[in-house]
């Protein structure tokens, strides 16, 4: 079943065409990798799908309905985002409890027990609720961001380079957590990354984005073995040799 579909999606910032004629389908329950270099428009595409940005033209369909026909409050509960940098995506003046409780409060689901449940879900100790973000490590903060995103039981999550700013050792932990959560809660992910190495083991399907267009789509294995586009080959070559041999 199609979870998300974009139809001829375009976004222009002044003269820059960040997203051009993108037709993308994300199936229910899958992890779709979206790969491209910085400035290729992948983050913009993620934000268009979440209705955090208005498209210049085209439309986004979520669960069979155009997103601008879905009440914003409902949309915000069903789709969420995990940001790249947990250092800046948490309000430095909000305690962890308030950060996780905030989405519940906004949507009038006043349950403090849910906060405790979410901390368990992302494997953080309950004692963290009275701490501030700056008292936590990068990985811990990213778990808070994940807990916050999961608070309202969304079914679709845009992961915008969720591990790019973390140490390599922490990356694996967070990826594992995301994968576990995806299976446990039957989530659909759009997983944005700038290199192919991260998505290789993680995604069911990968699309490659270049200059605002989708240029190639395949399973990770086939994409590595038989890239059709010069640009994809470039991305593959950018993976360190040792790691590449390990993957292929």
């Amino acid at each position, binding site marked *: 079943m199609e979870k998300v579909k974009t139809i001829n999606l375009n976004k222009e910032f002044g003269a820059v065409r960040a997203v051009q004629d993108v037709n993308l389908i994300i199936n229910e329950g899958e992890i779709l990798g979206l790969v491209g270099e910085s400035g290729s428009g992948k983050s913009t595409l993620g934000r268009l799908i*979440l209705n*955090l940005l208005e498209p210049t033209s085209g439309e986004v369909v979520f669960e069979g309905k155009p997103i601008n026909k879905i009440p914003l409050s409902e949309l915000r509960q069903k789709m*969420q985002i995990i*940001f790249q940098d947990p250092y800046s*995506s948490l309000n430095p003046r909000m305690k962890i409890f308030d950060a996780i409780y*905030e*989405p519940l409060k*906004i949507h009038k689901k006043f349950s403090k027990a849910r906060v405790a449940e979410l901390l368990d879900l992302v494997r953080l100790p309950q004692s963290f609720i009275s701490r501030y973000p700056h008292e936590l490590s990068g990985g811990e903060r990213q778990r808070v961001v994940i807990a*916050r995103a999961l608070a309202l039981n969304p079914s679709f999550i845009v992961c915008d380079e969720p591990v790019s700013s973390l140490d390599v050792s922490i990356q694996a932990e967070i990826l594992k957590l995301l994968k576990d959560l995806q299976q446990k809660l039957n989530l659909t992910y759009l997983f944005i990354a700038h290199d192919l190495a991260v998505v290789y083991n993680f995604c069911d399907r990968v699309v490659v984005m270049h200059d605002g267009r989708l240029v190639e789509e395949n399973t990770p294995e086939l994409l590595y073995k038989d890239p059709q586009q010069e640009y994809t080959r470039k991305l593959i070559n950018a993976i360190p040799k040792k790691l590449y041999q390990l993957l292929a």
Partner: protein
Amino acid sequence: MNQFKKNKFAIFGLVVLGLFIFLAVFANVISPYNPESIVESETQPPSLKHWFGTDEIGRDILSRVFYGSRISLTVGFVAVVIAIIIGIVFGALSGYFGGFLDTVLMRFVDVMLAFPSIFLILTIQIMLSPNIYNVMIVIGLTSWMGVARLVRGEFLTQKERQYVEAAHAIGASNLRIIFRHILPNAIAPIVVAATLGMAGAILTESALSFLGLGVQPPTPSWGNMLMDAQAYMRDAPWIAIFPGLFILLSVLSLYFVGEGLRQVFNPKE
């Protein structure tokens, strides 16, 4: 906090301010005489009986200065609160929403800044009856523009931060983002501006009262005590010296505290 402690000027300012606030709160307890009653038949220089001497009609200056600190600090505080509230509303709307609203609000700020504010205050005070409440309101209404610009700048930087987008993503309303997210992160420079603004407001109140358009006699304020003293500067300088000294000390202390806070909030400077 440690950095603030290291700043001797800031500590000095804090101590003096604390003392003045104490004097203002307990003026009725610690003043040796009624500030408005004539206790001596002549002007007396400072003595053990009247530490600061008596003024031109024989009132105890020490008591008048204590009661005056009530007026001056209250006026300064209330005026700054008014200025900060208006400044935050203007600055937040301007910086957060931007676009046409920003242009309109900021041009209004420019217009307000273009008026020489002391003349604006004088004009308004002449039209209204000059009493202490009007003084507070008028000073507040003419001193918020700096705060508005400051808050706008803070909002412009803060709204690009990712936690703001994260708040949008969970469905937070604009009001919520402005007050619960951005404002707490912009509070440091506002506190500094408030401290410095209060010094300005105390000076303005003194100037107004000195010109006879502020707090009306016989209620003592530091400013109108100075006004009364000017005719006797040569023969009885103490009448002017003590209220003047208190104005100087309070303004100076507020500046020291403000600068101390600024250093704490911007450790790079």
